[in-house]
């Protein structure tokens, strides 16, 4: 005989889960009782939102499904932002929530919330399990759905009586899950791939625009191989950073609102845009009808709904990017030289590098640049959201996939610190840095307690400008410097960290940046670095909202 809670924990372990992030409460008591003597590692967070983000960070760093657990009502509702974050960035997580007993469902019982209803638009799928007998296969389906196709979060809502009931249950032998309403296309259509190759050979100025899909399908090697064998320049989205080494000669860096000038100029001039695992998001395209105006478009994506959603496509290829790129590479017979185009791109790269004022002042970009030099592309970099995120994207040289973890689609402040905890459990041997702003860090600052008690060696580098910097930047540029509610009072983050039992240093001069970063890296446990940076530094270049992406402002420092 097994209880529902027992089936849940055993089922998780059968799915290969080693670590889950959670927070107990009334209706999950049976599950926590089961965890008490389980070999499954449970990390107690200090707020359920952090559990969801940690599961997400774990998933992004490892490529496996992350798991979080919360109680009903407020616990489940606190997961919502984390689930939405994972949904927008197609991250595989399974969120398990307790629910009031089935007899009380719909009665506005204590700590009841309709979490399957609430998360309907932000999950790939969700379940309210009403019978203990169904739990085993629901769990298998949930992991299958989360981790295949276009990945995403799946929620399982578990009423208390379903967890407590004992049944005779044997886990079925691991036959593959089959769902008649869910059969993702993995292989690309051969004729479409032929057509894509024809377009590539016809083009004079082809450009690859690679997104997060390349990372999530582990297609980085195939992408690099395409770039190298065909000689096609590549730009990546925020989510695609790390797919191609930053210093690859044909890599133009990030495109879009805070992308490089060379990437954005290349998009405008290209005559063939090859979108791979990217979705023509508004932060990438700017004004849509001026995006790649001269280009034919090849779009490779696992999700058919993304194809043609925003931009008209000439050759759509539905399939897993890794599989499609392998098939495409295998078919390459002829090659073409794009010398003039490559030379033009080299010219832009030389003329418009990303720059900031290197004047001995403690500027935020300097912190990122020095960290990048120290880590030499190793380690995992997580960011919060806002200026800290954009500077990291611009100035950290990412060389490998899954070493850059950030909330792109939803833009969730407070994501980075808990996601960094998750990344540590995925890759315990790697140095994990959360590059934060003072605003974002304070949105999940309570997790200092989690890292302290579990000695999770996450390093937090706060680019502390005492502003909600990105909003302040927009106010400066577009609202006559009317800094409405964006100035934050100074916080002594070192004292806060110490109060939780975490070490920290404040850094006030540019000369102290490297020693401070080294001290953090050399410390075994968690560490907080409070960089008091130039307060009104802006992220440049920048495409104003609604403009074409070659209408960039700023970023030319003499």
């Amino acid at each position: 005989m097994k209880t529902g809670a027992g089936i849940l924990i055993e089922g998780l372990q059968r799915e290969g889960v080693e670590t889950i992030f959670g927070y107990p409460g009334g209706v999950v008591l049976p599950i926590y009782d089961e965890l008490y003597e389980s070999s499954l590692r449970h990390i107690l967070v200090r707020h359920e939102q952090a559990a969801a983000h940690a599961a997400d960070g774990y998933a992004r760093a490892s490529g496996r499904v992350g798991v979080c657990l919360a109680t009903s009502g407020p616990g489940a509702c606190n997961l919502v932002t984390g689930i939405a974050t994972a949904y927008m960035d197609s991250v595989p997580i399974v969120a398990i929530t307790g629910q009031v007993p089935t007899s009380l469902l719909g009665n506005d019982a204590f700590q009841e919330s309709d979490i399957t209803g609430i998360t309907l638009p932000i999950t790939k799928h969700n379940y309210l399990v009403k019978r203990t007998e169904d739990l085993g296969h629901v769990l298998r389906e949930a992991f299958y759905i989360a981790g295949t196709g276009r990945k995403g979060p799946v929620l399982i809502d578990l009423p208390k009586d379903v967890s407590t009931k004992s049944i005779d249950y044997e886990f079925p032998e691991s036959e593959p899950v089959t769902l008649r309403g869910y059969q993702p296309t993995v292989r690309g259509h051969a004729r479409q791939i032929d057509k894509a190759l024809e377009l590539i050979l016809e083009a004079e100025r082809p450009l690859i625009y690679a997104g997060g899909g390349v990372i999530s399908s582990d297609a980085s090697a195939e992408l690099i191989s395409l770039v190298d064998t065909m000689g096609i320049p590549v730009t990546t989205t925020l989510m695609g950073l790390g797919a191609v080494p930053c210093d690859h000669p044909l890599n133009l860096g990030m495109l879009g609102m805070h992308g490089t000038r060379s990437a954005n100029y290349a998009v405008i001039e290209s005559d063939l845009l090859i979108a791979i695992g990217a979705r023509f998001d508004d932060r990438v395209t700017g004004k849509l009808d001026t995006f790649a105006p001269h280009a034919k478009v090849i779009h490779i994506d696992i999700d058919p709904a993304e194809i043609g959603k925003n931009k008209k496509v000439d050759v759509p290829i539905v399939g897993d990017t890794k599989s499609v790129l392998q098939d495409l590479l295998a078919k390459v017979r002829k090659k073409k030289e794009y010398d003039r185009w490559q030379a033009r791109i080299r010219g832009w790269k030389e003329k418009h590098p990303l720059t900031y004022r290197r004047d001995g002042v403690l500027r935020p970009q300097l912190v990122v640049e020095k960290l990048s030099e120290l880590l030499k592309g190793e380690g995992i970099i997580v960011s919060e959201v806002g200026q800290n995120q954009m500077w990291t994207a611009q100035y950290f040289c990412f060389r490998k996939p899954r070493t850059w973890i950030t909330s792109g689609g939803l833009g969730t402040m407070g994501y980075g610190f808990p996601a960094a905890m998750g990344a540590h459990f995925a890759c315990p041997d790697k140095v994990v840095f959360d590059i934060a702003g003072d605003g974002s860090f304070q949105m999940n600052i309570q997790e200092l307690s989690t890292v302290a008690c579990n000695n999770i060696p996450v390093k937090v580098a706060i680019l502390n400008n005492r502003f909600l910097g990105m909003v302040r930047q927009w106010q400066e540029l577009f609202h006559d410097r009317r800094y409405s509610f964006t100035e934050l009072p100074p916080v002594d983050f070192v004292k806060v960290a110490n109060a939780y039992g975490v070490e920290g240093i404040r850094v006030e001069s540019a000369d102290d940046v490297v020693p401070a970063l080294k001290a953090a890296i050399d410390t075994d446990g968690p560490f907080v670095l409070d960089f008091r940076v130039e307060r009104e530094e802006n992220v440049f270049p920048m495409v104003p909202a609604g403009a074409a992406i070659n209408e960039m402002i700023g970023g030319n420092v003499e």
Partner: protein
Amino acid sequence: MKAHTLSVLVENKAGVLSRVTGLFSRRGFNIESLAVGVCEEPGMSRITIVCIGDDAQIEQVMKQLNKLIDVIKVSDITENERVERELALIKVSADPGTSRAEVMQLATIFRAQIIDVGAKTVTLSVAGDTEKIDALEKLLRQYGVKELVRTGKIAILRGTKTVKSAK
């Protein structure tokens, strides 16, 4: 922009209707008419949805519907030869002495059935395509429509073809 008739085969599970309708509202698509019921396949239901949009919007609706795990198949049958039916129940003022005979005559012409009679009313049941029901309703207005209940449209392909076999 034109009306499209979508035939959506779904798992007969709790919450599937709210998944489908929720998708329409959150992605800004309008539903003109909706009908749900069990179908020939055990454990499945068929939802017939009429919605208005241009080709790109309808393509996007269908792709998004297809992404729902509980949706098994989505077919746009707008261009197919098909039979469509809606059902309306209409309670009309019809005094025995004056208008009742005329109302009953209209019912005969429209092949509507009289399914209930009250002291001063007659209730009709009429099935047909949208235009037929609209036409009858318009004619009955002059007598006074006390209440009208109408289902969404259901549709089936003509001949041996089925929605499942159609492209």
